[in-house]
């Protein structure tokens, strides 16, 4: 089976798409597998996180949701360069990333008035590889 290798497309503004995701995922079982609803506080936090990012990074975020009610922001170039960040109702971040074929990163942090610099650095590094193949 061949792995995924396609750059993400960015047709809709990230903030608008985040709002759409929230509206689609605020009811129980939104994924057909018993997912928990996304709380309003989680949407507020994800929106705040997006606004705290440098504009050029925020513009390329692809929002989503996870079955535990967290919202996600993803920057995906290919399987070797990507980061997915989960944001919850307590302003906690959980992330997993690939910044090269054999360089995996993951961790947890929190944010209030600033996004953790290491997270910004990873997003930046991922997007440095967002060029046509």
């Amino acid at each position: 089976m061949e792995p995924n290798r396609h750059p993400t497309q960015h047709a809709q503004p990230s903030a608008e798409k985040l709002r759409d995701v929230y509206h689609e995922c605020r009811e129980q079982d939104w994924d057909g597998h018993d997912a928990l609803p996304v709380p309003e506080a989680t949407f507020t936090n994800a929106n705040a996180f997006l606004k705290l990012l440098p504009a050029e990074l925020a513009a390329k975020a692809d929002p989503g949701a996870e079955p535990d009610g967290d919202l996600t922001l993803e920057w995906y170039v290919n399987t070797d360069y990507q980061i997915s960040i989960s944001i919850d109702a307590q302003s906690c971040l959980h992330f997993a990333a690939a910044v090269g074929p054999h360089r995996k990163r993951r961790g947890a942090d929190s944010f209030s008035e600033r996004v953790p610099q290491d997270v910004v650095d990873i997003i930046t590094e991922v997007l440095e590889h967002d060029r046509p193949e």
Partner: protein
Amino acid sequence: MIDPNNPPSVEADEVVARYVMQRRHVRANNTVKPDAFIPHPHRELSVTRHRGAAEEEIWAIGKQVAAQRAKPLMGRADIEVAACETQGLLVKAAPLPENPNHANVTGWPREKHEQKHRAMELANRAMFTQYPE
């Protein structure tokens, strides 16, 4: 389909399907996000074995699951059992009355960022197929 009274143990070279009923779990380029593989609120990830099932039967099960939840069936993400085992996860047969090919991916870590890391690796190896309406 598998005999529900005598399900064979899951082999590493089998393929299992995760039904996708949330459009946000699929990227614009038809690849699947890690979000689709986060095992919550259950501790196991529900999948369907391809073993002994015709293509039409695999889709019929997905359509049945989606109909029960009143969700649209977007497609399915196929993943090799070996890819799960590489991440330290186990795939166990768990036949259901309505789906004798049902199985669970178990052994997920408790920490969210570790779950995300494994979900990302599964998504990297997954092959998404759109439901052929």
